[in-house]
């Protein structure tokens, strides 16, 4: 890929430059996370930062937030060079990071959260009346009345409102520079609109906003300029209006796109999984067929309820009605053990929370599903256990010095390999992969996909859930577009274009 964006985009209007990064470089061990990145943000600008997982976005914003320090490069605020050594210092400079995981105390009220750590006092005593009065005033002054009552407990609010509370808290301490990391990841379409209104209002008030998102459609509607990062380098900055989404996707995924397009050969065999009118709390009548040797891509935005479908199939949150047929036999799945017995495996979305015992050894995690294979009664068979471990490590090229090592020592990619590899000791009929490449570096992703291709060509049926469009489009034979708990359209992946798919997924009814 030879194309890059224009290296210096024209200046939007005459707004003053708020933040300028030059030659920012950061290494973690031998890995270069950032490699001489330049970046500019003006006051009253929404600047989108784009790039794949591992492109360096989170390193960049963590440097801004005082969590990491750069190895080289300079940071200028209002033309003055600054050094941000710690989070408190970022606060003092008026820089606030708003992460995907919100940092609110869910058990406290909105008002208490807004003034957490700087509560109004009266002779040393907490002045609750003033706390609520001040909060009320603040929320109104910021135009965030949508939050609702400041007396409400934060855990009772929708994610969108919680996000607004977070923004209000940032602005309450006079933040001039907001960094939002995937803020719409778990928002509905209407909530997203409310957030955008807030951000646009802040823009007119002169706040500088760095906006990180994978959703091109969103960025096109919201941002003024775009900077694309790939493999720790800036691909340049461009005005949103002047760049085609197709081009953007190409710049973002770069060389990956070519590789991802090598989908497994499509030789669909017998019907592996057939689902009819499956319903649960958040699954609203799903039907589809999946054949052996086939990859069905379930494309949808986060929050569309895709994981809920996976959970219904795997028996984590069993379906209320509908039929599931695996390998031609109707099955009732009430718990994961039922699903496993029927030959269906789910590799969950959140490997840290749902996949692995992080403190335990790699070998422990690899052998956990097969304990009854290597422990007969009360006679553990060490050789058999080592065999399972060795086969998994070898066939998936898991990079681990010693299988006795705790799993948290492994990189994200190798952890993901562990979660997938352990099921391949006895390959299932149907494998559901839920966001299999989240937080997985490019190299490990390639390896995972190469292995997956081999398994599929050997007859494995895969249901691939991903919000990474190039991935799900490049790897699947057929696409099922998923929105609001339903499959809204099914089509051969080869016929789909990212624009069509995105348009369908983001449509609101």
């Amino acid at each position, binding site marked *: 890929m030879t194309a890059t964006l224009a290296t210096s985009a024209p200046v939007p209007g005459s707004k003053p430059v708020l933040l300028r990064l030059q030659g920012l470089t950061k290494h973690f061990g031998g890995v270069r996370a950032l490699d001489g990145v330049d970046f500019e943000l003006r006051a009253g600008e929404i600047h989108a930062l784009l790039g794949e997982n591992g492109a360096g976005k989170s390193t960049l914003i963590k440097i801004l937030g005082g969590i990491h320090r750069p190895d080289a490069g300079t940071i200028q605020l209002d033309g003055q060079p600054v050094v941000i050594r710690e989070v408190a210092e970022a606060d003092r400079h008026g820089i606030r990071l708003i992460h995907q995981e919100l940092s609110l105390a869910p058990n406290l009220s909105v008002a208490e959260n807004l003034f957490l750590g700087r509560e109004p006092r009266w002779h040393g005593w907490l002045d609750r009346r003033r706390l609520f009065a001040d909060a009320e005033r603040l929320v109104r002054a910021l135009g965030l009345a949508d939050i609702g009552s400041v007396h409400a407990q934060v855990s009772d609010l929708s994610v969108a409102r919680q996000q607004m509370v977070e923004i209000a808290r940032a602005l309450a301490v006079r933040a001039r520079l907001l960094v939002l990391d995937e803020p719409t990841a778990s928002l509905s379409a209407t909530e997203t609109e409310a957030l955008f209104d807030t951000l646009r209002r802040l823009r007119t008030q002169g706040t500088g906003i760095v906006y990180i998102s994978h959703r091109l459609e969103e960025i096109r509607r919201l941002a003024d300029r775009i900077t694309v990062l790939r493999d720790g380098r800036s691909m340049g900055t461009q005005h949103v209006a002047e760049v085609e989404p197709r081009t953007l996707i190409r710049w973002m995924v770069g060389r990956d796109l070519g590789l991802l397009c090598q989908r497994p050969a499509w030789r669909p065999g017998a019907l592996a999984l057939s689902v009819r009118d499956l319903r649960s709390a958040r699954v609203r009548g799903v039907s589809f067929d999946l054949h052996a040797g086939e990859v069905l891509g379930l494309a949808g935005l986060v929050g569309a309820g895709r994981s809920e479908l996976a959970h219904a199939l795997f028996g984590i949150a069993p379906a209320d009605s509908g039929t599931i047929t695996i390998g031609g036999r109707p099955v009732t799945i009430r718990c994961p053990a039922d699903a496993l017995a029927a030959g269906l495996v789910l590799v969950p979305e959140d490997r840290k929370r749902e996949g692995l015992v992080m403190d335990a050894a790699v070998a422990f995690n690899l052998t*956990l599903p097969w304990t009854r294979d290597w422990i007969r009664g*009360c006679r553990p068979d060490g050789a058999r256990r080592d065999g399972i471990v060795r086969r998994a490590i070898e066939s998936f090229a898991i990079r681990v010095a010693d299988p006795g090592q705790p799993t948290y020592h492994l990189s994200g990619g190798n952890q993901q390999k562990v979660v997938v590899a352990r099921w391949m000791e006895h390959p299932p009929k149907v494998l559901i992969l839920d966001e299999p490449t989240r937080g997985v570096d490019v190299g490990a992703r390639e390896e995972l996909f190469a292995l997956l291709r081999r398994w599929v060509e050997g007859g494995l049926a895969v249901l691939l859930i991903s919000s990474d469009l190039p991935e799900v489009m490049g790897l699947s034979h057929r696409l099922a577009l998923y929105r609001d708990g339903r499959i809204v359209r099914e089509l051969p992946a080869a016929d789909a274009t990212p624009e069509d798919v995105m348009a369908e997924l983001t449509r609101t009814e």
Partner: protein
Amino acid sequence: MKRIFPLLLAIVALTILMALWVPQGRFLTASNLLDLAQQIAVNAILAFGLTLVILIGGIDLSVGAVVALVGTIAVAVLASAGWIVALAAGLAAAAVFGLVNGWCAANTRMPPFIITLAMMLVARGFALRFNEGRPLPIPDTERVFLALGNARLFDLIPVPVLLMLGAFLLMALLLHRTAFGQHLYAMGGNREAARFTGIRLARNEVTVYVLCSVLAGLAGIIHASQLYSAEPGSGQGFELNAIAAVVVGGTSFTGGTGTLPGTLLGAVIIGILDKGLNQAGVHFSLQYVIKGLVILAAVYLDVRRRHSN
């Protein structure tokens, strides 16, 4: 082994300390050490069950009251139905409490601390129903029942110690040699991950609480036999002493780490402290203080070591 070594070291150090401290060298004699072993038995048996419970991130506060309840039930049944039925009735009652504890912990969102606190009161209440809460003496004719707490094999090894070792072997095999044991470690380490691996959480959890209660029942029978009577008010605070043995033995309250040999050594440490301080003539009020500080130090060292790796 890394975890066991510091505990062995502590036991050696405490033994030397007590041997020097207790007057007239009365601590380090064969008969005194056998006495010590006999006194450890009840606490150790309780601690074995609690190890599994704490390992999966739970807690069982009801074991002390179950000790009293099972003792009274067994002794009440003893006169009319003989020792076999008495033991069966006692252990069955214990199993029922374990079932309730485990079912509630597995299938409701109630925290185990509260469930077992409530069941502790229930068990204590049932125990006090017998004989208006007054002790029920065990007739001298009940040779087998009295032997459980007082006899010595070959006139040497106390039967409670044998029962303790039997319970230890069984539980150690279960925890360290079976798939069930592996699954408990997984549940304690990451309950969600265990669920996604197809491990039957509810079944395992109920099993663990039942095992813990039944072991408490065994301890209750031994305890009643040792006292030559069932005392509905006995067993107060036993749960805390057993928890102390478990945590001193290196089981983490957050779940996922701990071993049965560790717990055995933890119980030995608590036992040496109890007996040694007593024999050294330390005022009983000060015994509490010292024991408390030792527990604090032991857990502090364990936590620090774990976080340095």
